[in-house]
């Protein structure tokens, strides 16, 4: 295809913005339909308990109440339980998971009953009147406790709390360790995090009782997947379900799920014949929306005395929570190939055990497995550097995989594009490395209480989920393709229908840029349609930094097919052979006769009237593409962080943050930078501020935004960004993905910086989040003080 480059690569202002800037967004909570009633859930206050009796009488007698149901009352609604789509091993233990618990509750927040009323306030008031008689059961909330002999069992039907163990090896790991001169070992705790998309979850279901169909508006990242799975849960024909994701206020994985409340609102709408709405309060969401991370990690590196890595041995334990949400068991696997980072070696062994606890279920949170893996290797390589007497730059450059295409990694993947050293050099240049080191030395020499540290994170990640056959080999329950339709309208405008489902990423703008260049149209003549299963019948939706490298490629390829068809019509009308035509800026011209042209808009009209088409050509000018990528994409980058640590208070202040990413071809640099900013901020938040904690009885201690610290603008610096460009070899545009890279890279960059700042004090491992109290205690302990 002869594509101009008018829009791709430019910082086109977003087409999404006007509605969002003026208060005209269609967030689910903003939507109303006539006759709508409101659901409020009664949730367990216990980490584990047997439900002895649910008394709904007082709630039913309250004003404006339409109905109230216990889990037992609703048991007949479910043709299947809530789904888990990634049974990573054949012997994985999969517990029953009903939208409303029937007999036993297993975490604080597990739904017990629901009240429906004519207003949200009336429903909430009446839910308070539901009287549940519980028999408390013993709880276990942490991984080690759950794996201890005799631990309370989260699911009585399983003999212990282990959900699965998945292993993955390459090479001869024992031989690698046997011949190693040095072995270093790191042990890390990845705290539990609460994703905190700014829009709380909400659902609105409108039934059409006579027709037997249902329309659900949901704050979801996955309308198409939700449609299929909810039809199975409810026993409704898939063809009777329409799912719409309107404007969605952020996700970060927390809306990559099929949730109890979605199934429940459909069930209530079916039973009552009324539209039913549910909106989560923020604090309710803290209990009832998935959490992320929560892993214990052990990593060992075997290396030569020069610091060359021979082997990687990794063992992790991952907290699944009380039930298995949609892809939870697979989250650690997404990191399971990446504990070798961007480095080489001969052998690799990874083992992960999933564990049940009496806590809110975990699942994919921005980066999903890869931030944890990157943290472990980027911390461990610093241990190795110290052991063999190299600095952070030398150890990395010594071990980098060679520059190339389809480069095998010790983790068993083939990286589509590697070119790591120049990327690091650019970051060092942007930072002014030598000056930072000089100031660090000067402050130390002066005995300053404000010490400087420089942290490195030179990561590679895998994204663009995913080649369907690879997913099959990992027991994943779906394909990894995505779909697009590009349709020229009779008036010369175009519709792009995409199977991706944006919630802040700017797909409307980026897909418009791709299509405008490919079709030679003005960007304002392109409309992008998404997030409605009746409008876009096929899609795998948005997560895992996949939208551009899978769905965006489908758009690009479909445009190519439209141009090919238009070319045959142009050739017919111009009475030349298609080979004699050139396509540029939306116009076909006869080579050598530049004034004989047909604009693509004219051809769209000609295709619609069908008055004169080449023999055998169907009317209309549109094309589909379902793109199944041949490989993941592997973005990489170098993130450098400079911190100032106050040795008297333990306070950590980020002075500089330099990020040089390589995400291949860039469609819109402004949007890419925005993704990096936000991703880096979430990783910094994990490094310094955020941690969800449970009391032993299963109470979520960080139960609201009051005591879970989502950082504000005051906690961050401005970020200094640049890029290198190594195109992906996995797709025709050379694009990779950038949605998660910042989060994957930044947590170890920050902690490496804190560790570097305190290196002269020999404080040992820096825990995350590195709160002032923890850092102060490290310093005091190192001094032998009474901390």
């Amino acid at each position, binding site marked *: 295809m002869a594509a101009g480059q008018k829009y791709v690569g430019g910082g086109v202002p977003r087409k999404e913005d006007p509605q969002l800037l003026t208060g005209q967004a269609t967030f689910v909570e903003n939507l109303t339909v006539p006759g709508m009633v409101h659901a409020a859930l009664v949730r367990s206050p216990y980490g584990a308990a047997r439900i002895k009796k649910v008394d709904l009488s007082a709630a039913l007698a309250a004003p404006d109440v339409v109905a109230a149901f216990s889990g037992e009352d609703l048991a007949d609604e479910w043709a299947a339980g809530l789904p888990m789509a990634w049974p990573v091993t054949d012997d994985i233990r999969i517990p029953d998971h009903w939208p409303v618990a029937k007999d036993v509750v297993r975490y604080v927040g597990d739904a017990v009953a629901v009240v429906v009323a004519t207003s949200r306030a009336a429903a909430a008031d009446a839910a308070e009147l539901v009287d549940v008689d519980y028999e408390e059961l013993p709880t276990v909330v942490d991984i080690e406790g759950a794996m201890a002999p005799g631990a309370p069992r989260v699911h009585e039907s399983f003999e212990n709390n282990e959900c699965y163990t998945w292993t993955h090896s390459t090479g001869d790991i024992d031989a690698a360790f046997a011949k190693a001169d040095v072995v270093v070992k790191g042990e890390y705790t990845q705290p539990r995090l609460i994703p905190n998309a700014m829009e709380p979850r909400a659902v609105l279901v409108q039934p059409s009782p006579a027709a037997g169909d249902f329309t659900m508006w949901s704050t979801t990242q996955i309308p198409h997947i939700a449609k299929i799975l909810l039809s199975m849960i409810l026993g409704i024909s898939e063809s009777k379900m329409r799912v719409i994701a309107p404007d969605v206020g952020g996700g970060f994985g927390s809306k990559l799920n099929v949730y109890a409340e979605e199934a429940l609102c459909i069930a209530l709408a079916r039973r009552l014949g009324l539209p039913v709405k549910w909106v989560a*309060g923020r604090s309710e969401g803290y209990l009832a929306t998935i959490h992320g991370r929560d892993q214990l990690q052990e990593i060992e590196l075997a290396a030569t005395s020069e610091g060359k890595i021979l082997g990687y041995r990794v063992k992790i334990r991952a907290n699944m929570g009380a039930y298995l949400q949609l892809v939870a068991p697979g989250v650690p696997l997404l990191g399971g190939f990446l504990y070798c980072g961007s480095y080489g070696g001969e052998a690799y062994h990874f083992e992960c055990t999933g564990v049940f606890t009496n806590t809110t279920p975990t699942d994919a949170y921005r980066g999903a497995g890869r931030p944890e893996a990157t943290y472990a290797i980027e911390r461990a390589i610093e241990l190795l550097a110290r052991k063999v007497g190299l600095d952070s730059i030398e150890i990395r450059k010594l071990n980098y995989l060679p520059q190339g295409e389809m480069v095998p990694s010790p983790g068993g993947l083939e990286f589509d594009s590697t070119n790591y050293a120049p990327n690091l050099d650019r970051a060092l240049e942007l930072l002014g490395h030598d000056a930072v080191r000089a100031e660090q030395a000067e402050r130390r020499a002066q005995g300053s209480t404000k010490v400087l540290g420089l942290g490195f994170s030179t990561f590679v990640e895998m994204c663009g989920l995913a080649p369907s056959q690879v997913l099959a080999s990992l027991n994943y329950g779906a394909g990894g393709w995505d779909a697009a339709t590009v349709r020229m309208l009779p008036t010369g405008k175009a519709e792009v229908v995409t199977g991706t489902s944006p919630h802040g990423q700017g797909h409307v703008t980026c897909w418009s840029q791709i299509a405008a260049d490919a079709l030679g149209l003005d960007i304002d003549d392109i409309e992008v349609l998404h997030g409605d299963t009746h409008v876009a019948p096929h899609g795998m939706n948005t997560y895992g930094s996949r939208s551009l490298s899978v769905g965006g490629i489908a758009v690009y390829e479909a445009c190519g097919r439209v141009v090919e068809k238009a070319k045959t019509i142009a050739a017919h009308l111009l009475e030349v052979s298609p080979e004699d035509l050139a396509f540029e800026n939306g116009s076909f011209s006869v080579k050598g006769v530049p004034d004989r042209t047909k604009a693509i808009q004219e051809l769209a009209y000609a295709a619609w009237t069908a008055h004169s088409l080449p023999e055998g050509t169907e009317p209309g000018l549109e094309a589909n593409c379902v793109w199944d990528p041949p490989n993941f994409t592997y973005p990489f980058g170098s993130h450098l962080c400079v911190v100032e640590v106050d040795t008297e208070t333990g306070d950590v202040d980020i002075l500089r943050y330099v990020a040089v990413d390589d995400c291949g071809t860039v469609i819109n640099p402004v949007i890419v930078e925005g993704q990096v900013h936000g991703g880096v901020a979430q990783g910094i938040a994990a490094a310094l501020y955020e941690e969800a904690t449970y009391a032993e009885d299963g109470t979520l201690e960080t139960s609201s935004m009051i005591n879970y610290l989502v950082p504000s603008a005051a906690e961050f610096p401005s970020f200094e960004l640049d890029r290198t460009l190594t195109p992906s070899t996995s797709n025709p545009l050379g694009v990779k993905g950038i949605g998660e890279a910042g989060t994957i890279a930044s947590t170890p960059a920050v902690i490496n910086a804190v560790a570097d700042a305190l290196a002269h004090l020999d404080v040992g491992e820096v825990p995350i989040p590195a709160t002032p109290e923890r850092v102060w205690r490290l310093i005091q302990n190192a001094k032998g003080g009474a901390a």
Partner: protein
Amino acid sequence: MKRISVTVNGVRHEAEVEPRTLLVYFIREQLGLTGTNVGCDTSSCGACTVHLNGQSVKSCTVLAVQADGQEVTTIEGLATNGKLHPMQQAFHEEHGLQCGFCTPGMIMAAVGIVDENPDPSEAEVREALEGNLCRCTGYHNIVRAVISGAKASV
């Protein structure tokens, strides 16, 4: 129920409200102005920021009855004659929004900041925005937008 009279975006509304009704729910549910969002239940996030008599407030911390006889401006009232307010335009040009959920509150807070300090430094903007949370942008472009919007508002 209590009868109140509140002028919102220049229109005077007479309404009956429960004494416990928060201003944000009065605006959203009784007046149907859904541009003002609710992002938390602890007055932490600032998504619901509006102007009450020209001062930015979190409308989840004000009872509707407290707004009786007062003037409220919401995000819907910021653009004039179809032209974006300079702060809205700055958020657009600086890519100061992604999912857009915090944006109405963020913009109302930003206008309030610039009213008090017409030429804020980056550090001043960051401190002043402490009550408004965003999870998408890392605040980088929001801060740039506020500074740019301040210059354009002069």
